[in-house]
């Protein structure tokens, strides 16, 4: 999975929990463990959106998190891609139409890649990251 010349650096991801139950978080952590080890391809989680190319969002966006999500999204330098992990972020899941939601995620920020599941398996998350990388390469390619 060597990046093309359009995107010639490591893909760094920032994870944002917008109200998830932590099921998706556990699977994201499982996806970065030595069993899969995506860091050997330069894919790693970073602690600040300012270092990130990819925003991974879990959870259905509760009211308290909307402003924070928008702020974090704005702080990621362009070009950037957004990946929504889990059923809650995609549709609201079991919290669909709840009084306490501002989501689903694509009602708040534009989403490029959806990874369905409750929670999705690590393989699915890694597949989503590969799709996100491909999207980022297309964006970079257009920009060149």
């Amino acid at each position, binding site marked *: 999975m060597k990046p093309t010349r359009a995107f010639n650096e490591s893909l760094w991801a920032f994870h*944002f929990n917008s109200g998830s139950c932590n099921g998706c978080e556990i699977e994201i952590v499982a996806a970065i463990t030595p069993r899969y080890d995506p860091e050997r391809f330069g894919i790693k989680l970073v602690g*600040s*959106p*300012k270092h990130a190319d990819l925003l991974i969002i879990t959870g259905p966006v509760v009211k308290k*998190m909307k*402003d*924070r*999500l928008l*702020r*974090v999204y*704005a*702080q*990621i*330098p*362009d070009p950037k891609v957004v990946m929504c992990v889990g059923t809650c972020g995609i549709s609201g899941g079991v919290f669909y139409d709840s009084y306490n939601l501002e989501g689903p995620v694509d009602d708040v920020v534009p989403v490029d890649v959806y990874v369905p599941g409750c929670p999705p398996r690590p393989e699915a998350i890694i597949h989503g990251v590969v799709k996100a990388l491909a999207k980022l390469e297309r964006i970079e390619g257009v920009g060149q």
Partner: protein
Amino acid sequence: MEIFSSLLSGSGAWNPLAWLLAFVVAAVIAYLIWARGERSYKKGTEQTAPFISGNKEPPKGDLHVRAGNLYWGYTDALKGYYERIVPLHSGDMNDYVLWYLGITALIMVIVVVFS
């Protein structure tokens, strides 16, 4: 090496040329680090604001350590004194002149009585 050891002290050698050289080297290194930074940040947007876990950045004034924070223990220990003195500190020049005249008159009375 004579030029680099013009001033010898108990702590070592000091020479302005050596310091200037060190400053230039540090400036070049700092510039190289700066030049490798992200250039696509948009000024005046959230992208240049500090990341505080997604929370809004507080106003700059709320983050500063004020002078009063530094001598809080002093003022707190002398609270009884300041509670009486601060109300007298009205900022009105007439009050201060009145105090000045009153104290001057008091000193003159003391001087006259005890001389």
